[in-house]
Structure formats: structure tokens, C-alpha cells
């Protein structure tokens, strides 16, 4: 009877899904059905018709506009999920995606304030990635120098990041020509991420998917990725084997932070165009869950990010079509997550 982490982290988790597709599918179907059944009971207590509500919700995600919105929402989630996946391979829990996303957006916006013209956008992206890396770097520095657990420090740094952003948008960076609202001036057109074809979707999704592929390749096919999993599996053994454990941990976390920072900056340059108080709306936390849903496998994490984005977009329907309170979607999301976390893994008996 130990905590769960060892079995999942030591063996390459990518090998796990191959063991029996049929039973895995059955577990997933069973778990999701259970979650939806409990959710339906809750709907009944609120006086809503579960079947109509769920049908409306699913239908609402199938229109062209909804699909665009799902892709837009998924883009930063994919990147921020990679920011969890990569450090997790080295055994690091990056709960600080939210803060790194914010600082990434802040850094991107900062670059945008001083650089214009065609160089602006690439520099903003780089600045955002560096900003996120810096923020994650603070936490991993505390980890490797004085041994403070990174889950706690990254969590605390989320709050500090928010205060940093609020300070900037209420004070030095506030748009002098705006209506007095706390926000930076809007990005110029050339500072924004271009749109894909004739859609409303910005290029952030391309960046996100390329980054996810890069993470997958790195973890699976490079010696760096292999060493990370050795460290993640057993740091003591890795140290004895002569691996530079501290350096690997730092690198993994910095890369993760950079990915989260990138998520912040594409959210800024793709859709928001201004730093504003509610900029991230839990991107970091939802992405953390997406990564865990996928048990830290990069490609399933992409799917999980899309699924959570779809639940958010579909969740609008709970309000607009069924008149349910806004919080209903949180309950649905939590039930699905619990079902997947607890009942879909193939596990050895205890």
C-alpha cells in the first residue's frame, strides 16, 4: 500500500496502453457513464431534464463557430499541459502553470510595448517563453539549491504572478488612452498572431501542436528524454549512475516554464490583445488536470486539452439552453476527471 507514483513513473508509461485495448475501452466507457449518471442525478435535483440538457450540450459543440472556439481555447491548454508533462517525466510536479502563463503573457506584452514592426511578434513569443521559464526557474532553483518542494513553491508563485500583473496593468503599463480600465494598450495588428486561413482560429494552435510533437519526440526519442525518465524513476539511482540530476531537473522545469509562458503569450497575441485582470481564467490549472488525465503522455494530453476545452465551450449550453447556473460545468468537469483518474487505469491489485 503505497502512493501511486512509482509504478507509473518508472516504466515508460507509453507502453501501458498497449496492454489490451478492449478492456481499456470498457473501463473508459464505464467510468464516463458513471460520471454522467451522477451528473444526471444532480441535474434532476436542479429541476432540469438530463437527456435534453446533455443532448443540447453535445449539439452545441458541433457548429462551426463552436469548433473554432474549442480550437482557440485548446491552444494555450495544449502548451500549458506540455508544461506539466515535461517536468513530470523528471518527477517534478509543476502546479505553477497558471503563474507561468501569466508571466509569459506579461513578458510578451512587455516586449510588445517597446518593439513594433515585423520583429515584434517573434520577439514577443521568445520573451513570453523566457518569462515563463524564469518563473518556473525560481521554483526549481529553490528545489535544487535548498530542497524545497516545487509543487508548493509553484503554487505559491501563481499568486505572486497575479499580483505582478495587476500591479503592471493598474500602474505603469495602464493604457493612457483607454477608458480607464486596467489593461495595457491593445497590440498592433502586426504584433498579433495571424489567423489560420479564413477562420477565427489563430496560429497559436499550430505552435501548440508543433510544440506538443516536439515534446513527444524529445521524451521518446532523445537521450535527454531518456535521462529525464531515469531521474523521474529513481533520482538516487540516477545520481549514482552519474547523471547530472540537478541540471536535468532545472532543464526540464525551464522548458516546462517556457512552454507555459508560450501559452500565455499566444493567448495574449492570438485572442486577448491586452493584459487584463482575468487574463488566464484557470488555463494553468485546467492544463495541469489535462496532463494528469493523460497520465503525462504528450499526445493523449493534447486530446485531453481538447476535451476540456470542449467541455468549457459546451458548458455554455448548460446556461444558455437549459438555464442552469454557471457552476454546473465545474461539477461536470470534476465528475469526469474523478471517473477518469480513478477508474480508467489498469492497475495491479494491491
Amino acid at each position: 500500500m503505497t502512493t501511486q507514483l512509482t509504478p507509473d513513473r518508472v516504466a515508460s508509461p507509453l507502453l501501458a496502453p498497449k496492454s489490451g485495448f478492449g478492456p481499456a475501452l470498457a473501463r473508459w466507457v464505464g467510468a464516463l457513464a458513471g460520471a454522467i449518471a451522477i451528473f444526471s442525478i444532480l441535474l434532476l435535483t436542479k429541476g432540469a431534464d438530463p437527456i435534453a440538457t446533455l443532448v443540447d450540450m453535445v449539439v452545441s459543440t458541433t457548429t462551426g463557430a463552436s469548433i473554432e472556439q474549442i480550437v482557440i481555447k485548446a491552444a494555450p491548454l495544449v502548451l500549458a499541459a506540455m508544461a506539466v508533462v515535461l517536468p513530470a517525466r523528471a518527477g517534478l510536479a509543476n502546479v505553477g502553470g497558471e503563474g507561468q502563463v501569466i508571466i509569459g503573457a506579461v513578458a510578451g506584452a512587455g516586449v510588445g510595448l517597446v518593439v513594433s514592426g515585423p520583429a515584434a511578434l517573434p520577439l514577443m513569443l521568445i520573451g513570453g517563453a523566457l518569462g515563463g521559464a524564469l518563473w518556473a526557474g525560481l521554483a526549481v532553483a529553490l528545489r535544487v539549491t535548498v530542497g524545497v518542494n516545487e509543487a508548493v513553491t509553484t503554487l505559491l508563485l501563481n499568486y505572486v504572478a497575479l499580483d505582478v500583473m495587476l500591479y503592471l496593468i493598474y500602474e505603469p503599463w495602464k493604457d493612457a488612452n483607454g477608458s480607464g480600465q486596467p489593461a495595457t494598450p491593445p497590440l498592433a495588428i502586426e504584433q498579433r498572431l495571424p489567423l489560420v486561413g479564413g477562420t477565427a482560429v489563430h496560429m497559436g494552435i499550430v505552435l501548440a501542436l508543433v510544440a506538443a510533437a516536439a515534446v513527444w519526440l524529445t521524451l521518446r526519442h532523445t537521450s535527454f528524454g531518456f535521462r529525464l525518465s531515469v531521474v523521474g524513476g529513481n533520482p538516487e539511482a540516477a545520481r549514482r549512475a552519474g547523471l547530472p540530476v540537478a541540471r536535468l531537473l532545472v532543464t526540464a522545469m525551464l522548458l516546462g516554464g517556457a512552454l507555459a509562458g508560450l501559452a500565455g503569450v499566444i493567448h495574449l497575441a492570438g485572442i486577448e490583445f491586452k493584459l487584463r485582470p482575468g487574463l488566464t481564467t484557470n488555463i494553468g490549472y485546467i492544463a495541469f488536470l489535462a496532463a494528469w488525465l493523460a497520465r503525462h503522455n504528450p499526445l493523449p494530453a493534447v486530446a485531453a486539452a481538447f476535451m476540456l476545452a470542449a467541455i468549457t465551450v459546451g458548458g455554455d449550453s448548460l446556461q444558455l439552453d437549459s438555464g442552469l447556473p454557471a457552476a454546473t460545468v465545474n461539477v461536470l468537469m470534476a465528475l469526469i476527471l474523478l471517473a477518469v483518474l480513478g477508474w480508467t487505469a489498469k492497475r495491479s491489485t494491491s
Partner: protein
Amino acid sequence: MRKLAALAALLTVPLIACSANTTGTATTGTTSASPGKDSTAVGFIFVGPKDDFGYNQAAYQGSQEVAKAYPNLEVITAENVPEDDNAARVMNSMIAKGAKIIFATSYGHLDAALKVAAEHPDVAVVQQGNLITTAVPKNAGTFFGTVYEPVYLAGIAAGKATKSGKLGYVYAFPITQTIDNINAFELGAQSVNPAAQTFAVSTSSWCDPAKQAEAAANLLKQGVDVITQHQDCTATVIKATEAAGAFTVGYHADASAIAPKGWLTGSQWNWGPLYTDIVKTALGGGFTGSKYNDNFRVGYRTGENPFVQSPYGPLVDAETKAAIEKARDLLKTSSPFAGPVTDQEGKVRIPAGTVPDYTTIEKIDYFVAGVVGTLPKS
């Protein structure tokens, strides 16, 4: 780091062949002659829960009055809509459900509202509380009451009631609406009690009851004996004030029930008539060019303010009521910010004899003399 650079370079490649992101900046397509005309539905988005007993509940009640006035219209509401691009998504979903009139009821919904307006020339989008600082699109507008006017009147009641000369203001963030309110409250109190000071304490949250409790406790400890607030949820501060035997000036709603002894007066919303008139104008096809196709402000100078003074509490004497009546009459031609208005440093910001217009007032970014507190320097 090497990998990071490679990654960044790799990621910049696909950026070349695609269209510029002009979302929300240009009005694409043809402009409609009459946005909102013959709509079958009206959409309302609220930033908080529609039963918050405060700002959002008042807006929700306004939407229900529209439903009552137009039984054939479907009134679609969405609560907890964040002040970012999520708001545009929710509004678009409402439009997909047939709404051609949209109310975006929070200050921070403006950018999303303008984006939606640009994408849908046939939809009238009105935003509550902010200012459009660029050219106003043909199918958009903002509206608000002069919130600070009833707050000024309530300040008179506070100035009369205080024994210590110290008033307290619990606020969330230093946005313009809040700054106007704090200033107007102090100016109202000063008009009858020149020595009155207003101590402003921020909570950095629109609703963190524990922080509110701490703010109220500290104000009371410093001898403040009248407290008002600009928060989305208001019960905590009012209960703490009442328990300490101090006076309450309300905001958003009539809360005299939870402060039966210390309630003075306050300011509360009555959105129904204004919402209904906006809907009527748009349904009739006359939105473009109407007063709502602008930064529409209504106050004691122009007519029916949707922000009204709350009923008086038992301890407000006849003299105070008379002073408030007099001031209200004066506001029909003047303003709480009629000059001279000096800031905390003693600099005259509005010269004597000047009555600033609504837009000027909504850009005030300083505290007036008599307010004790610090604003960020932007």
C-alpha cells in the same frame, strides 16, 4: 536553452502564410441599417452570479423586467461570464440562438462587446458602465447612470451622521467608477461637514468576505463611524458595521434589513426602465443614431438615473433629509464635481465655476482632498 532556441525557431516557421488578425478592429461586411430590428431574443451577460445580492443581481432583475415587458421575446442570460474573450464566445452563442440585441453588463466586457459588434453588424450590442473612446460603431453603445450622484447624496447623510469625522470606504480595485464614488462620497460629506475625511481601504477582490471583514474591523478600530463600500457582495461589511454600532451607507441594494439600526441611506439600481427602452429602440429599428448608439449617460441633469437613492434609515433626521433634497435639486443643473475640486496634494483639478461633463468625470484618476488613501500612479 539550445533546445528552447531551436524550438522557438521551429515554431516561427508556419507563421508566414496566413491572414492578419484584425479581429474586432474593423467592421467587416456591409453595415446594417437597423441593428437589432425584429429580434426574437435578447441576450444578457453578467460577470458574476446573478444572485449576488449586488451589481449582477440588479442587472439580472433588469433583464427580467425586459422579459415582462416583451413576453414574446426570449431573454437569454449567462452569469459568471469572465471579462475576456470568453465573453465574446458567450455573446456569439446568444446571437446563434437568435438574439440581435445584446447587453454586456460589466465594465470589463467592453472589448469583447466591441468585437462581437464588429462581427455582427445586424446585432445591437450595448455595454454597461464603460466608455467607447474611439469612434462609436453604428451598432454599439455604452450606457450608465451617474453612479456617483446618489453616492454624493449619501455622503451628505454620512457627513451629518458622523461624530468622529472619519468615514470609511471599502473598495476592491482603483477603477474609475470606484474613484468617482469615493471622491463623490467625500465631497458630499464635506459639503455639510468640512472636516470629514474618508479612509479608503482596498481588498483587491470584488468579493472576498474575509478581507472585507478585516477592512471593516480596522476602519472601525480607527474610529471610523460610517462605512460604505464598492464591492460586489456587501453583507459582510454591513453586518460588521452594524455590530459595532456604526452607520452604514449601502451600495447596489437596499440592505436596511441587515442594518436596522445604523442604516442611513445608500444607492441602488433600477435598470428595468432603461433596459426596456433600449430594447424598444432597437426592436423598432431606430438604434443607429439614437442616444443609445453613443456613450449614453443619464443622471440628475438629464433625467431618470437608473441608480437611485435607497430609503432612509430611522436615524436620519429631518435636517439631513432637507440638505439632501436641496443637493438633489442642485444636481439638476450642477455636478458633485462642480469646481473648485482640489486633489490630495492641494492642486486645483477642476477650477471654480466649471461643471465638468460626464466623460471628464469618468476619467478622474486622483483622490480629492479629504480622502485618505493612495492610488496607483499610472
